[in-house]
């Protein structure tokens, strides 16, 4: 309960903090939607008569906006410039602050990106089955958790390297390739598809989008949950080892 109150307060703080940087958030929105838009154009050209393609990619854009994570810019920078010390002094888990900022940025991206999703949907005359959209909600929530855990995990490498952006950039490419943005994973070659279905990236983007688009019924919550449990375990180990290396020299 106390953690929820603290998280709520932190979220409010961060929403306020980021409200002054709406122009910067707009650039993040553009960055987030470019890759799915390219996928949309390419696969719509390949399958011009399949309305599910446009529906799927509009859903991917929305999922991407609602699950984007930037811990390499927020959390890792605090390791580099030593301001993580402020968080370490607070009688609460450091991750509360990280989650608060993550949720605030996602809220802003969703708000600022909503017009793009709406315009794309109208332009391509995309129609959704709203029951399918409702059914995708738990998958979307778990996707948001997965993306956060994945990005946070990679951002923790800032304790070891000053090249965290390259590490997270590589991780984002894996999500792009195997998550269903480069291509719906059903369209990947057989071998790659089988690999993609096992890796966590499909659960971060393609799965909730497919369910919202009505091209899949559901049934993979356990797959997402298992990856969440696994990533939480790795994050906890990495945090414990990494924080021992934190030096904050000269700050």
């Amino acid at each position: 309960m106390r953690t929820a109150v603290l998280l709520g307060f932190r979220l409010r703080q961060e929403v306020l903090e980021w409200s002054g940087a709406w122009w910067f958030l707009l650039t993040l929105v553009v960055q987030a939607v470019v890759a799915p838009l390219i996928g949309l154009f390419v696969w719509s050209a390949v399958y011009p008569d399949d309305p599910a393609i446009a529906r799927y990619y509009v859903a991917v854009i929305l999922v991407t906006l609602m699950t984007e994570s930037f811990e390499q810019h927020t959390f890792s920078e605090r390791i580099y410039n030593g301001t993580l010390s402020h968080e370490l002094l607070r009688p609460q888990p450091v991750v509360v602050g990280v989650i608060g900022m993550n949720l605030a940025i996602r809220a802003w991206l969703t708000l600022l990106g909503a017009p793009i999703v709406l315009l794309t949907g109208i332009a391509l005359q995309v129609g959704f089955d709203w029951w399918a959209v409702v059914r995708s909600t738990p998958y979307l929530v778990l996707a948001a958790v997965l993306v956060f855990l994945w990005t946070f995990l990679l951002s923790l490498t800032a304790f070891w390297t000053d090249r965290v952006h390259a590490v997270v950039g590589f991780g984002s490419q894996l999500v792009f390739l195997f998550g269903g943005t480069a291509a719906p994973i059903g369209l990947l070659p057989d071998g790659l598809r089988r690999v993609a279905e096992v890796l966590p990236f499909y659960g971060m983007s393609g799965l909730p989008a497919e369910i919202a688009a009505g091209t899949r019924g559901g049934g993979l919550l356990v797959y997402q949950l298992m990856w969440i449990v696994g990533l939480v375990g790795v994050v906890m180990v990495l945090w414990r080892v990494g924080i021992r290396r934190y030096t904050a020299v000269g700050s």
Partner: protein
Amino acid sequence: MTAVEVENLSMSYKAPVRKGGLRAAFGSLVRREYKTVQALDEVSFTIAPGEVAGFIGPNGAGKTTTMKILSGILHPTSGAVQVLGTVPWQRRSAFLKRIAFVRGSQPVGGSQELTVMDSLEYQRLLYDVPRTTFRRTLADLEALLELEPLLERQLRALSLGERMRVGLAMALIYHPEVLFLDEPTIGLDVTAASQIREFVQEYVEQTGATVLLTSHYMADVASLCPRLILIDKGKVQYDGPLAELSARLSPYKLIRISTQGDPSSFGEVVDKADGRWVLRVPRDEVAGTTGRLLQALEVVDLAVEEPPLEKVIDQAYREGLR
């Protein structure tokens, strides 16, 4: 019973190094070289509850690193530390609610968009301060730190002096028992620095808090800390009363004298202007020299002083302790 107990505390870390030039830069792509920096080397001391200790030393001596370890931010390489009976770097909530670490260089962390009052309210939630206690403490802090005009201001819009006052208020709103103050008056003007000093003194008197203070301003140390711990190159060089350090480092005292005569034969002249002289005299000859001066000259005023603390500490930093 001790509030802070530090035993053989050492801290080292690896810093990447390379020679200048393109060849060395390419070489470092294949094989990076590191240098081990010994920030702390077998540091030991204890601080009793309610004691105010000054922790001084030149830049890079290891003061801030020690404070970061004592407040739980850093893990040491070796050694044992107990603050209020707890190992700090375990960062237990109950422990963190009993200490505060205020840095003059970054007095206020967190969201800079918030108003001062919002930030204090966040501290109340974070540290589980009951509303009645919060209101009472806030009223006290408002009076002591002249906070009232700042409460509705955003943190980002505060001046350095105001940020320090707010930083102290945010740290003290939950009544910490141990206070780590790292350069609390850095960058402040004389008045603001003096206000902060008076405030810390008053807080300690009222609450009996234990304080470890670092400062390069000897006025802070002299007015607040009966005990000094001098650290240099990661090692404790001196731990004891301020006056003793002064006596140990400087075998001289200063005699300040106003006279129309010439007292230059009674000691080394350090300064003279308009009939006012300052003589440097060996400590064990002060009484005799004073007597002879009073007999030989028509003295209007005479005072015996310790040499300025800045000079003594500067000497300690440059030459070490004998």
